[in-house]
């Protein structure tokens, strides 16, 4: 079963870090990813660019509406995710609780949807 751990954190705090601080944060992320890989839990993950680089697309009627910026202006934005292969939500939460952002932001864990019909195949 795959679980997506969605990382929500304050972007300004991140961009205000010195390059040494940021590098040390990246080290923590890399070491978590490495351990998840060695344990066979790592199924993917990506860091997203900042919301100021976001573009939002909606189609209403025949018209495609394109706006600069994120879908919603929020204090804590989605900044990236891990994809964990785990047996249970509890196990996924154990991994999620080790993502550095949990200490100042929040991590939302959601199971990846499995179609009941596909699951029976």
């Amino acid at each position, binding site marked *: 079963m795959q679980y997506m751990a969605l990382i929500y954190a304050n972007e300004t705090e991140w961009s205000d870090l010195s390059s040494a601080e940021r590098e040390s944060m990246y080290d923590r992320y890399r070491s978590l990813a490495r351990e998840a890989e060695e344990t066979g839990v790592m199924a993917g993950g990506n860091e*997203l660019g900042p919301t100021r680089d976001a573009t939002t697309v909606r189609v209403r009627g025949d018209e495609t509406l394109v706006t600069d910026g994120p*879908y*919603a202006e929020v204090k804590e934005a989605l900044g990236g995710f891990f994809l964990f292969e785990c047996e249970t939500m509890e196990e996924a939460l154990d991994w999620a609780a080790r993502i550095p952002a949990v200490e100042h932001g*929040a991590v939302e864990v959601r199971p*990846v*949807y499995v179609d009941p019909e596909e699951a029976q195949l």
Partner: protein
Amino acid sequence: MKYAMLIYDDDSAWVDLPDDEKAAFRAEEMPKWVALFEELGKADPNVSGKELDGRGTAKVVRVRDGERIVTDGPFAETKEILGGVFLTELPDLDEAIRLAALIPAAQGGGSIEIRPVVQ
């Protein structure tokens, strides 16, 4: 350039339906998604995507002063919720916008947020 397409949509129309009704609802929507997968596959043969389970399955974890706090429900209490993600390698933002507009959720009242992926 690598892009993430974040699909925000109101899932209340179907997420709480019983399994058989949910399956019927999804079957009705499926042709539009199949058409999208075809277009996405043409643009990027290595496109990947994940659909997330409904908001009732979400948990949020925080650690404050060394203590783990787990709460039920999604992080953002909004009507529209992140329902899935596509990851694509595309030539430019215009192509990402063209494909995002083909995502059925963009047409049904939802929004697609395109974000560059940090390489």
